């Protein structure tokens, strides 16, 4: 079989991180942390190099306006947008991992390799309309993440979190597979695009409904929507900080981009019972996610668990975009995800930048740190206010666009719930600001700080600053991101399906 140039350029984006992921273990063969520093640096460099190479490749595709495809694998604008999103998140995570793993004293190349495999899976997940390929992508992105959660074996929570994630994730994956099987059985095709003309006839069939719901469940688990969210806080708490950030941003993003591609086009936007029921389920899930995520986040004492619940609540806002279901709402979701990338990677990176390794991630540990590193504190404040959705930060415009479409579609009640939820969220995001600037450090922390020299985490600090600047830039020039990138991604990407 000979591949055409079009087909090659479609799979290149998958090949680059995949091949780099295979190469990395060669550089990482060691059992007991004996590697020289330059070898470690080389591993990180290979990972970054692969991510950057892929990034430049995909941006050049975007620049040329090329939308190659290889069977059901479509590297269209939407997939390119999602790929760029995932690659930037991964690159930030790699930079933060360098500092975090050194703080933990457990620098292993496997982590990078797993991360790259996960990235490959995510790109596959976002760029396919074939349910079987989607399942492959789902597994390829999930399994490395299970292992990544338990990377830091010396922490006793690590294994627990990994196993918890693995078991629940496996159930969700099997649900997804079952949904695929049912839909295949009823329609005779695995391609979501090909299912469209068949759906109106089958709309009333309960098997189709069950299939769609099981499929949806797989997605909802990945974006940690209530009631499939229980794994989130435990897993985030036990995972290395950058990996937790990566999971919260990239996994959620990949699942939502895939959802944007598959759901509205193939399954929901059909007349009849199916749409009403799936819509109702989405509304219920989104409302529960908003309420539960925000209220539980209020009671947390650990910043990482708070961020976990905050990521649940952000899944709620994003699902509101799915509820609205117009292309304008999808543009809003794309916009929201990009600003979420910046603000959440900033928030998780903050923990690494302040050198809070291990379980020392409570509000107490943050006390007074803002004055010690004012530039980081400033970036943290920007990220927190953006997470809370206060203008003029990027987070505000994401919410603005989604709420605007939601209201235009007549869901005013949901929009009111959404703004009330973000009001609640202000209270817990401000706690971080209060801890950073308003509270004096504990005496024990002071003593420790004077005994041990402060950990220098220049790469992680750099990423936090970049994130802060990015959040502000998105907030000051929202029109640029929304019309130049998100709008073209959604409109040109979805046109292929119609």
């Amino acid at each position, binding site marked *: 079989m000979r591949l055409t140039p079009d087909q090659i350029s479609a799979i290149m984006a998958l090949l680059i991180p995949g091949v780099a992921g295979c190469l990395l273990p060669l550089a990482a063969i060691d059992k007991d942390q004996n590697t020289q520093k330059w070898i470690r640096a080389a591993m990180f460099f290979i990972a970054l190099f692969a991510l950057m190479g892929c990034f430049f490749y995909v941006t050049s595709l975007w620049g040329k306006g090329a939308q190659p495809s290889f069977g059901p694998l479509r590297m269209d604008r939407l997939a390119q947008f999602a790929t760029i999103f995932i690659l930037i998140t991964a690159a930030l995570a790699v930079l933060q991992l360098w500092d975090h793993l050194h703080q933990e004293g457990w620098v292993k190349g496997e982590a990078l390799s797993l991360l790259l495999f996960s990235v490959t899976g995510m790109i596959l997940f976002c760029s396919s309309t074939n349910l079987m390929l989607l399942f492959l992508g789902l597994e390829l992105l999930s399994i490395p993440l299970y292992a990544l959660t338990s990377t830091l074996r010396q922490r006793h929570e690590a294994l627990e979190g990994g196993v918890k994630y693995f078991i629940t994730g496996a159930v969700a994956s099997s649900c997804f597979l079952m949904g695929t099987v049912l839909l295949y059985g009823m329609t005779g095709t695995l391609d979501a695009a090909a299912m469209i003309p068949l759906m109106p006839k089958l709309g009333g069939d309960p098997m189709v409904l069950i299939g769609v719901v099981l499929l949806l469940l797989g997605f909802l688990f990945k974006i940690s929507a209530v009631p499939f969210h229980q794994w989130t806080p435990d897993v985030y708490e036990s995972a290395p900080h950058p990996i937790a950030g990566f999971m919260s941003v990239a996994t959620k993003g990949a699942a939502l981009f895939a959802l944007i591609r598959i759901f509205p086009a193939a399954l929901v936007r059909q007349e009849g019972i199916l749409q009403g029921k799936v819509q109702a389920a989405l509304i219920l899930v989104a409302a529960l996610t908003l309420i539960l995520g925000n209220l539980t986040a209020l009671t947390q004492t650990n910043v990482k668990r708070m961020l976990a619940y905050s990521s649940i609540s952000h899944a709620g806002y994003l699902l509101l975009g799915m509820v609205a279901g117009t292309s304008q709402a999808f543009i809003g979701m794309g916009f929201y995800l990009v600003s979420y990338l910046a603000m959440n990677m900033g928030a998780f990176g903050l923990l690494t930048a302040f050198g809070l390794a291990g379980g020392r991630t409570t509000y107490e540990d943050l006390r007074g740190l803002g004055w010690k590193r004012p530039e980081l504190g400033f970036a943290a404040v920007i990220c927190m206010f953006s997470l809370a959705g*206060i*203008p003029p930060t990027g987070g505000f415009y994401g919410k*603005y666009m989604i709420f*605007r479409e939601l209201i235009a579609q007549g869901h005013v009640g949901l*929009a009111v719930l959404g703004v009330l939820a973000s*009001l609640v969220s202000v*209270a817990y995001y401000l706690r971080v600001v*209060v801890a950073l600037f308003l509270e004096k450090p504990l005496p024990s922390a002071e003593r420790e700080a004077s005994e041990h020299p402060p950990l220098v985490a220049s790469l992680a600090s750099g990423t936090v600053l970049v994130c802060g600047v990015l959040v502000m830039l998105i907030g000051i020039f929202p029109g640029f991101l929304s019309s130049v990138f998100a709008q073209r991604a959604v409109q040109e990407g979805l046109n292929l399906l119609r």
Partner: protein
Amino acid sequence: MISTWINTHLLTFLVFAPLVLGLILLCLPQKQAPMAKLLGFLGSLGVFVISLVHFLRMGGHSYVENLPWMTLVNIPVDYHLALDGLNFWLVLLTTFLTPLTLLGTWASLKERSGLATALFLMLETGMLGALLAQDLFLFYLFWEAMLLPMYFLIALWGGEERRYASLKFMLYTLAGSLLWLVALLYLAGKSGSFAPALMAQTALTLSTGIQGILFLAFALAFAIKVPLFPFHTWLPDAHTEAPTMGSVILAGVLLKLGTYGFLRFALPIFPGATLHYAKPMAILAVIAIIYGALVAMAQKDIKKLVAYSSVSHMGFVMLGMASLTIIGTQGAMLQMLNHGVSTGALFLLVGMLYDRAHTRMISDFGGIATRMPVFTFFFMVVTLSSIGLPLTNGFVGEFWILNGTYTSAFGWGRALACIAALGVLLGAVYMLWMVKRAFWGAANTDEHSGTAHLTQDLNGREIAVMVPIVVLIFWMGLHPQTFTAISERPVAELMAPFQPDAPAKMAEVAR
């Protein structure tokens, strides 16, 4: 070159110059705090002078800047700033109070005063932007942008309960503005624009019930900021805990943005709903007047007393607007300025007292008059203006408001005017009673607190701060036309839909 740019982009310059200056000050090291304060003061003084010079030369022509900014989810957002009769004096008040406050609180903050100055300048940007913005989305952005610097001013330099007060301030204000945002988005979605004029046209096509709900959402956001009676509880906490500069600008300008929002947006966009809800608004305003005065009377802390007097005074502004008469609204416009000047001055004076004695309890003082005669002179003048003594500014505003309410076409006008007049009386009672106990009574004999610390009268800097205020107080009292002439026409246009040229309709709703 710069001066020509300023000439053509005066409003942009006014709004963003403090922000740029603030960002520069933010980058100065902490050791340079005196330098930062000096730069902040001179910079904001420069902004004031430029605004004054340009505005006085304004003559007939008005300042407008209108550019398309961006299109988000199919709705265009304009960068539309304009100076007109409604915001003219409020803008000047803001640029005037900023350098004055910075000078007046020069020595108040011991720690990180450079940072406080920077935040204060950013706050000025938010206030000026909100006052000048003509596009509702732009207004919303500036409205929210005022929150953050104020939050940090309270949270970082506040008193004992600063964390509670700052959080309460944040959550209360956001609660109103977020629900307002939903209404704004609803209306913008219907009209496809954020321009108030287009929104008003669209609002007319909506059903009365929806208009009412939208108006209430607008009103809630503004009423919390004013603050109107049941939503006022954040104010005393915020005022008491905030550092002096925060209190001054909070009372001086921030609260005005609530009433200004009513005048600028809520009334013209929803004339029908305004007519319908005028009565509840007036009743709440009268409750605020009486309740605020009574609670102020019971206070032991001078600053808290002034804070509650704010609730009472802002009640007058709301009452004047709710009367929907031209004279009442003109009175409200003037009362906004009065309150900004007098209450701002009161907070400054209380701050000066606190800097010396480190207490604000009335019972810790007594006999201030004998120890600080100059201070007492200024305090008395400001007190009398706050009470509304004829010849001072307070009198004209309150008189016009009561006049407007009494003569309004509403059936409830006379009764409410009479009750509100009682509030003027109560105002005299709590202020003078406080002055009597703190300034004239027997001195507190305790060696370690209160009066004993008052060894120095006002210095030159503090006198320099108070003199312009006193001049202004008498100017506004003796010749209020200076300050109301420009708003005559816009207010008349604003009130035109409510005037009894449709008497039947008025009577019907009023009943």
